[in-house]
């Protein structure tokens, strides 16, 4: 039991930090531009596929740097030539543009790399058993992923709290119009923020690719969870996004590891009643329910606290 708790906590924190790499970018983009980037998970997917391709050509370590830069450049182009022109039609049009983009990116990726999972391997340098927790070998690559996400997290914190750019971004989080009135080049800030946000998503993709499955549906499966994270944490709140990322990461990881069901806890139902909704619910294991837990949390938080965990703004 304690083994399960330690391993699941490690994995949960890891997944949570990965979610935060994505949700932090999404939150900052949303707060400053008012755009909910539906394609954010698609940029994460692009990161994974670029990482795979560049690893094949020039090795993992250069790919770790180049792939996020490439994704960030694509993100900036999307902002400059897509979102900026759509801005005049309102936020719904912008959301729809990123929705169409997510759709197109998925199709393009599966067109080029196919629909089956890619053989994206952990780099040889990190491919050995690091240490043994109880009886499980914990791979060093996961430690590396955790380290990268923590480094990025700390770097983000320092940039936001200690630099001038960070100050402007923070100010724009709460008072976007005032920042524009103060004479900052809003267009450039938008492009920069969008570029950095998508680059972070790309980085998450590069490091997550070898550990999780690199496949053309990875954006479609992660995207909805990402939106749950930022609605749950409170739209536009970075601390909220951080807490929600970790919470959802841990909850999902623990749920997948647990095999209990109501039937195993209270004994099976009377078999003579035959199949019914009740017996479906009675026999389903927690692991099977894991994919829907984030959405149940979403509905609950909306009933209890509609603005999200740490949210202050109404929309």
């Amino acid at each position, binding site marked *: 039991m304690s083994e399960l708790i330690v391993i699941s906590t490690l994995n949960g924190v890891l997944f949570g930090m990965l979610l935060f790499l994505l949700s932090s970018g999404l939150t900052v983009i*949303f707060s400053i531009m008012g755009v*909910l980037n539906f394609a954010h998970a698609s940029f994460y997917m692009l990161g994974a596929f670029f990482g795979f391709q560049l690893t094949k050509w020039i090795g993992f370590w250069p790919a770790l740097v180049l792939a996020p830069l490439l994704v960030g450049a694509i993100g900036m182009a999307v902002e400059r030539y*897509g979102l900026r*022109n*759509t801005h005049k*039609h309102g*936020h*719904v*049009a912008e*959301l*729809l*543009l990123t*929705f*169409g*983009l997510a*759709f*197109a990116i998925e*199709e*393009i990726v599966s*067109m*080029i*790399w*196919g629909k089956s999972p890619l053989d994206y391997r952990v780099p040889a340098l990190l491919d050995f058993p690091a240490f043994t927790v109880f009886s499980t070998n914990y791979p060093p690559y996961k430690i590396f992923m955790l380290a990268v996400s923590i480094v990025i997290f700390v770097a983000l914190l320092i940039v936001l709290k200690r630099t001038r750019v960070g100050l402007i971004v923070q100010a724009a989080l709460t008072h976007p119009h005032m920042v524009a009135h103060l004479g900052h080049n809003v267009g450039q800030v938008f492009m920069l923020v969008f570029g950095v946000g998508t680059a972070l998503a790309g980085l998450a993709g590069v490091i997550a690719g070898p550990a999780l499955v690199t496949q053309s549906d990875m954006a*479609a499966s992660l995207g*909805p969870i990402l*939106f*749950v994270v*930022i*609605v749950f944490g409170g*739209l536009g709140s970075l601390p909220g996004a951080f807490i929600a990322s970790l919470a959802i990461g841990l909850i999902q990881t623990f749920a997948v590891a647990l095999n209990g069901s109501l039937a195993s806890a209270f004994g099976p139902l009377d078999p003579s009643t035959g*199949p*019914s*909704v009740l*017996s*479906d*619910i009675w026999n*389903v294991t927690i692991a*099977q*329910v894991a*994919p*829907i837990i*984030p*959405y*149940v949390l*979403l*509905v609950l938080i*909306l*009933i209890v606290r*509609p603005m999200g965990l740490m949210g202050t703004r*109404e*929309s």
Partner: protein
Amino acid sequence: MTTAASSTSSAGGTPATENLRFYGVWLIATIALIVLPMVFSSGSSLTSFSLIGIAIVFALSYNILLGQTGLLSFGHAVHYGLGGFAACHMMNAVVSHGWPIPLPFIPLFGGLGGLAFAMVIGWVITKRAGTVFAMISLGIGELVASSSLILRSVFGGEAGITTDRTALPHMFGWTFGPQLQVYYLIAFWLVLAAIAMYALTRTPLGRICNAVRDNPERVQFIGYDPHVVRYIAYCLAGFFAGIAGGLAAINFEIANSAYLGAIQSGLVLFATFIGGTAYFFGPILGAILVTYLQLGLTNLTSVWQLYFGIIFIGIVMFSPGGIAGLLMMHRPLVRAGTLSTVIPSYLVAIVPTAALACGVILVIETIARYSGGDGNPINLFGIAFNPVSPVTWVVAAVLVVVGFFVARLTWRRIAEAWDRAATVARDRGYLA
């Protein structure tokens, strides 16, 4: 966005001729629906017409949310799918209990299924509008789609629930075995649902929905609760989506979890938005186009969904009013008689724009077949291109680059001609 479905009444003409024209349009549409299968009577066209009819009801129901109330939903297929399941279960129950309910009434139960879920979940989901509503609808969509695989006894797991439409009590001697009879059933419900949804846009409720879309704060000041208005609109949209789902269940004799999924939700959003949300006939155009493309393109190319995405992005960026918006833009010019000054610039622009489109198609198909290892030649309007030959690549590149720069010049000419024509129309008082 503000002139939703009201253009017919505000336009000129005496009320009598206006009425005549209005009922004439509906009458002609109904007659067209009746005559259509007599003109195109092959099996495949009947199937297509049936699918298009279902898609139109679904897209119109979606427009109650998107166009009328300004709610962007990413999970509308939930109501469509639940309507389909409700209809399937109802059909099976009718058969097993021997209830005297003939098949034509079944879509109503589909609608009630969609309505029931909308009433349960709607109150929470419509608390907020805008982006938050969009995200929550996406979450609800995922929740229901995932749950449908867990609750096997209701949703039948991966296989779904099957049914037999011919086993129900017959009506007027119709067995509803042949596709033709199913088509007429769908056409009947299409007309009924379209009239009901059009009538909805003209009621005070429909108008207050528009007000909630445009300015919820002022709606609060005149004493309405925007949350309640959104909730009612959401329930009605769920009801009509359920009818569409019930029709689909009758047509396919099966309901499965694909009905509820994100792809279905995405398709109805595409259809409605491409058609245009500001006019009642927009979603109808969109549903016809998207279903037709879906049926036609799947045979031609493996990446048909990418073309959907590109068309959608193009519409969002360049014509947010959709096809209907583009068409209706020309109305004042037609009335002012200045349309003829714009048409030459259109004709000039067609050539480079078509070249650009061909270039893009060629690029996409080349990449798709090159990386897919598919050596089949690309057949573009009767000309065969070899996807592995550099000649094809050069032709594609030239078409895209040259086409783009020439097309941009001609688009500028259109804008200039348009401005001149619009100025004249404004002077003559046909354009505000």
